């Protein structure tokens, strides 16, 4: 591994983000090749987190653009501050200023509301991190517009002229894959797929993010999550759920998993009514009873055997 990649990995770990080489390599290349990164993965695997960590690791500003259906250029780029413009016009009523001068005054920087994309481009000090979150939710026309901005890092405002980025922002796009993004956008970006964490990584995440948790509980929770993600659920719990759950267990002063405690805290990580109904009772019992005394064993073998038993349990219903 070369120095640059290791440095980024260390930087991210310092920000309490448990990373791996794949993530660090892509982040490194994004900076070196000056390309945006497109991050895809299931909900709750920490896609958005990467941008946040990057910005605090680099000590730079994080600018976030949350995408949604119908998001348009006015919301993403800039808008004129109309109330302020009108007030100014009123105040100037007595003066003899010509229309041209007045127009120039109210269509100036002071009346401009900068939305995320313009903010990211017009930063003066240093390159910010621009997070374009859930880009798959925006519609295709917006994607095309985004593509334009991402290739030139400049925008034109009719009243003001062209604004070019002095510092090219680090761009992170995330997608939950509700639709396929255009090939053109994909080609503009480096690609990173983030999977649910492996057992070891998840244990590290828990112990990093939930300080004071005992090792046994962290192991058990991670094992439980590994197994539960093999069950077909409407909403598979992600890392955020793991952490919520670990904190709930801590708050209840539990130091290991047992039936009652799991049942009581189920809502921390299973957030779908059908899923709760599906797991409640026998399946949970199967999972937890098979876990005791297994902490030191081969986790993947355990996951495999317990998933089989769970499947059998669920199919007999």
């Amino acid at each position, binding site marked *: 591994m070369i120095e640059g990649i290791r440095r980024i990995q260390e930087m991210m770990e310092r920000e309490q983000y448990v990373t791996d080489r794949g993530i660090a390599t892509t982040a490194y290349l994004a900076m070196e*090749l000056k390309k945006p990164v497109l991050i895809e993965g299931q909900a709750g695997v920490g896609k958005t987190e990467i941008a946040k960590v990057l910005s605090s690791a680099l000590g730079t500003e994080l600018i976030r653009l949350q995408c949604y259906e119908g998001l348009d250029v006015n919301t993403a780029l800039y808008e004129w501050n109309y109330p302020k413009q*009108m007030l100014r*016009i009123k105040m100037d009523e007595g003066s003899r200023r010509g*229309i041209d001068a*007045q127009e120039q005054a109210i269509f100036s920087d002071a009346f401009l509301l900068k939305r995320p994309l313009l903010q990211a481009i017009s930063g003066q000090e240093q390159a910010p991190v621009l997070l374009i979150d859930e880009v798959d939710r925006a519609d295709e026309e917006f994607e095309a517009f985004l593509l334009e901005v991402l290739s030139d890092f400049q925008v034109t405002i009719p009243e003001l002229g062209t604004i070019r980025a002095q510092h090219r922002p680090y761009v992170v796009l995330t997608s939950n894959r509700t639709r396929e993004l255009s090939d053109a956008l994909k080609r503009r970006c480096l690609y990173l797929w983030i999977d649910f964490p492996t057992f070891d990584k998840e244990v590290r995440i828990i112990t990093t993010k939930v300080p004071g948790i005992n090792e046994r509980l962290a192991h058990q929770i991670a094992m439980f999550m590994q197994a539960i993600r093999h069950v077909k659920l409407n909403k598979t719990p992600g890392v955020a759920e793991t952490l919520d759950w670990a904190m709930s267990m801590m708050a209840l002063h539990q130091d290991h998993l047992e039936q009652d405690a799991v049942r009581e805290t189920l809502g921390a990580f299973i957030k779908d009514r059908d899923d709760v109904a599906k797991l409640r009772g026998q399946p949970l019992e199967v999972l937890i009873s098979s876990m005791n005394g297994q902490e030191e064993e081969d986790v993947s073998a355990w996951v495999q055997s317990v998933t089989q038993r769970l499947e059998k349990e669920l199919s007999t219903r």
Partner: protein
Amino acid sequence: MGSVGDAAPRERALYALKSRARHADLQRHVVAFGRELRAREMLVTSTEIMDGLRTLGRVDLGDRHDVYLGLQSVFVSRTEDVPIFDEVFDRFWRRIARVEEEEPGEQDPGSEGAEEGAAQPSGEGKEQLRLTDPDSEGDEGEGEGDEEALPLYSPVEMLAGKDFSRFQAEEMAEVARAVLVIAKRLATRESRRTRAASRSHLIDPRRTVRRNMKYGGTIIELARKQRKIRKPRLVLICDVSRSMDTYSRFLLQFIHALQNTIGKVESFVFSTSLTRVTDYFKGEEITEALDRIAREVRDWSGGTRIGQSLETFNSEWARKLVDRRTIVLILSDGLDTGDAEVLRGAMEELDSRAGKVIWLNPLLGSKDYRPLARGMSTALEHVDVFAPAHNLASLAELGRHLAT
């Protein structure tokens, strides 16, 4: 440039020459690598290849994992392609490892390459050949070979030149009219985006301020805007199995008309497997289109495997074509001979992606039909609208459902 005996410049020149050659070699390998990925249908263009080269200049070439991760983030653009990438990368690494070996002082990546080779002994001979000439067109030849190796369809499924030519003109015109009604419905959904308009109840502050500058800023004229019309996308999946024979021609006509009225329509037909037919209908005469489909769609009037066909659609097309604005229209009688569980799973996935799933069933027209066919009843729970499609009247009725 120096006196005799001054070896340094010459060595330097030699080194430069060597490293340039090495670079050229690398370049060749990366180009071949990209080409191979493209041959496997991955999204690779010259941009990726350039980025690939730039990446290799920035990672440790002796470290397989570094090179692998770096190139992966450049060349892969969807996670489904990772297995293909892995496979092709394996070969690439062996090539590049060879280039590296000639460099003195490098660690010995060749051993790793050999290890990789051992894991896949069958491919070894071919690799060597490829190594000597990565630019040869061997890849394509091989691709053709693969295709030939694919199992052919059984003769029963093959279409024996069906005659679609006996269409009646009035019938066509009527279908076109029904489709127009439907198209109109489809074309009138409002978006959250707006555009300028002269009469509307929404005021556009931006243009209002602009326009009233000429009155010294007193607002006299209001500029208005209205919501843009948003056209949803439509995906048609039409059953052309034997049990649908009486209807499929009629329904294809419907597809043709729809596709030529509304912009974004994608169409597919299936009986035992799925075929995309969007292009067949583009701008062509309906009879020509039908002829071509009859000629080229292999399993016309075969059995029905709705489940598998929809599964194929989900895995190969859905992500590209279906989002929450998409209406998926399935035209089938639901008489499935395949696994009901597969159908249920496929419908569930489709339902979760699409804005609306509409199932049109020609058999629904007959009074004593109840959706008891096993496939149909499992699929129904993931269908938003279940409606008949046996005649023009029922198609016209469809327009009502399409306006969400």
